[in-house]
């Protein structure tokens, strides 16, 4: 009787254990539900700007519109003229340089290299009117372009090579009466098309996000929560949250996933523990450039070739992306690209105009961090590789003058003479040029933050925790379970294991032979 009770108790415990072991109901992630609820209600404007008398006037110049805006929003220009979107630089403490100003004004990239001396064209993406190389007042509030960010009529467009002025066909009256909270295309007009075309630079920011499904981006999907850029990149007092490390250098004002999703977003303790060393993006953005290709390599050294008639020419790959342009050189594109991974602590260094080149390839921006730095996490990065013009005597990268409206102005895109272009460009930024140029390999690091996949498509454990060819195989400065081992311990272990097996086997064999002999003796 006692036995029966004991066994049935034991059996019950066993069954309960097994059920617990094999059955896992997905628990509800309530914080996720709250977020979905929060962003499900969309922003609606509390005023109709078209009813304001001041906006019904006939605007002759875009500056007139700005003046009308400031008529009511009479302190907003102060916020703008202290922003990096306006100044194209920001004050930062940089190791080795001290307190310095860094931004588009003085850092280089390895796409179209740099804006200096090319402002007439590059200022298409400046939030002002009339920025040119020689003359622009960063104090003049009349030149602030409110419309480029706040137009909701989809009418406003900046003109090509007009120093930031709008296209001449834009109906300023219509735009002025339809202003409001920025939506995707306001930001995307510059941030999607930077580098001369859709998705050229970022890889994770492109026009597909205007209308995509959840597989491309869970946050911005039109069949999902359909968030706008400014839902995350909030802009209280025009100080926009978040930053990009192609032009930023310090670990401040960053926009982090955990601000909404908390530092313990998973229902699984082991996954949550990854948070201290692995960024959310690492697992949740398995690939970028999901819809349209992004530029992965750009070789300026190949630029300047002409066809048999002496004319410029181009070649395309199967997706219709330029693989060669006489003006720009040779390109490589990638679609659905697996990021590379780097330790990153939120601080970056940049090659700024006038710096001396110390490494090859030159890292025009460099993400700082390492495994033993407690502030570093692993981030997915797009690394854009290429080469660009440099002066072997001064050991400086050269700011070339690329753009001009007409020939004979030393611009490379008109005259195809690197020497003239280098001379004019370096003169324009007040730096020496020895008269000799070469091409040097460059790398640029773009942390990947957008195009978050649905959770089912996040990386699985064994894409990193695997002996060979895992996603993190290039990061070797830490112990990764499943990938790393101590060869000596494993050698010792194998010798011990196989040695024991062999010893046992030999002993058993000896016993067997012995007993057979004994039986033979007995039978005799």
């Amino acid at each position, binding site marked *: 009787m006692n036995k029966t009770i004991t066994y049935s108790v034991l059996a019950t415990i066993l069954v309960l254990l097994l059920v617990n072991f094999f059955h896992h109901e997905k628990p509800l992630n309530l914080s996720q539900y709250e977020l979905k609820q929060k962003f499900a209600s969309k922003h609606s404007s509390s005023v109709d700007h078209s009813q304001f008398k001041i906006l019904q006037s006939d605007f002759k110049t875009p500056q007139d519109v700005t003046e009308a805006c400031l008529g009511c929003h009479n302190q907003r220009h102060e916020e703008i003229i202290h922003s990096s979107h306006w100044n194209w630089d920001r004050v930062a403490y940089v190791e080795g340089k001290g307190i310095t100003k860094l931004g588009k004004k003085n850092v280089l990239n390895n796409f179209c290299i740099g804006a200096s001396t090319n402002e007439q064209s590059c200022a298409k993406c400046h939030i002002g009117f009339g920025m040119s190389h020689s003359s622009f007042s960063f104090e003049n509030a009349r030149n602030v372009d409110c419309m480029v960010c706040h137009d909701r009529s989809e009418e406003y467009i900046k003109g090509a090579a007009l120093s930031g002025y709008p296209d001449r066909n834009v109906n300023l009256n219509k735009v002025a009466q339809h202003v409001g909270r920025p939506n995707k295309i306001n930001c995307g007009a510059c941030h999607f098309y930077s580098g001369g075309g859709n998705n050229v630079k970022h890889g994770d920011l492109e026009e597909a996000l205007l209308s995509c499904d959840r597989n491309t981006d869970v946050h911005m999907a039109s069949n999902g929560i359909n968030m706008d850029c400014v839902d995350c990149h909030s802009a209280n007092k025009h100080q926009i949250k978040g930053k990009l490390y192609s032009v930023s250098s310090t670990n401040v004002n960053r926009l982090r996933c955990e601000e909404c999703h908390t530092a313990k977003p998973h229902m699984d303790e082991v996954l949550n523990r990854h948070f201290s060393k692995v960024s959310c993006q690492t697992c949740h953005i398995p690939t970028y450039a999901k819809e349209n290709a992004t530029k992965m390599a750009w070789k300026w050294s190949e630029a300047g070739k002409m066809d048999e008639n002496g004319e410029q020419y181009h070649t395309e790959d199967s997706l219709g992306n330029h693989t060669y342009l006489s003006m720009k050189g040779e390109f490589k594109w990638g679609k659905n690209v697996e990021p590379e991974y780097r330790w990153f602590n939120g601080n970056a260094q940049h090659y700024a105009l006038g710096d001396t080149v110390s490494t090859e390839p030159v890292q025009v921006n460099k993400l700082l961090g390492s495994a033993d730095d407690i502030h570093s996490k692993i981030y997915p990065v797009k690394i854009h590789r290429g080469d660009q013009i440099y002066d072997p005597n001064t050991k400086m990268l050269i700011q070339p003058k690329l753009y001009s409206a007409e020939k004979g102005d030393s611009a490379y895109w008109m005259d195809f003479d690197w020497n003239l272009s280098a001379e004019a460009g370096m003169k324009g930024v007040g730096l020496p040029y020895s008269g000799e140029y070469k091409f040097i390999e460059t790398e640029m690091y773009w942390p990947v933050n957008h195009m978050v996949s649905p959770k089912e498509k996040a990386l699985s454990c*064994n894409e990193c925790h695997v002996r060979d060819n895992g996603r993190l195989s290039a990061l070797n400065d830490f112990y990764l*379970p499943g990938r790393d081992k101590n060869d000596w311990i494993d050698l010792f272990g194998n010798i*011990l294991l196989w040695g*024991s*097996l062999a*010893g046992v086997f030999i002993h*058993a064999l000896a*016993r067997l032979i012995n007993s057979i002999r004994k039986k033979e003796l007995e039978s005799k």
Partner: protein
Amino acid sequence: MKQVYIYKKFERFWHWSQAALIFFLALTGFEVHGSFELLGFEKAVAFHRIASYLLLALIAFSIFWHFTTGEWKQYIPTISKLKDQIQYYTVGMFKNAPHPTIKSAHKKLNPLQAMVYLGFKLVMAPVIVLTGILYLYFKTFDANDVIVVSDIPLEWIAWAHTFGAWLLMAFVIVHVYMTTTGHSITANIKAMLTGWELLEDEESNDDTSRETKEEQETK
């Protein structure tokens, strides 16, 4: 020779559940180590962690049992017949020599066993259990909270844990094989399953060792 009730109920439960856990932990553990792929890394980790908690609980119970029953004294090593025992396994048993020690309920382990099992309990198990606990709780708290074991590199913990696992594997192989060296090939395994073993008579006043099977059943 007579049947003696040598392994008590808890002892048998402890032995076999520990054996099962060790096999399961080895299987999942070496998958986590990257030696092979079977369940997939995620499941291997999850199951390894669950099984390790079960083992910890079992160990807690067994320590309690060893001390409350006095069974821990079985593991006090003796040097006196150690040499004879080694000689028996290497030479004696091939010459049909008798076991140099007599097994009984209050002396279940021969000197070599006592020595090896003590090593198991004082070296192998602590190495693997302590490093396992460090591994379990490594960086449980993030940078803003108290960090329990982040000062010890994961590398060291993992190496020591792997080292312990290799030792344990070798122990298991030899241990399983040695069970075949009883009076018959399966005598020892049967004893650990049923509790009863056919043992040689022992000159002793101890009551439990004299109990016959019949006496037990009449109780």
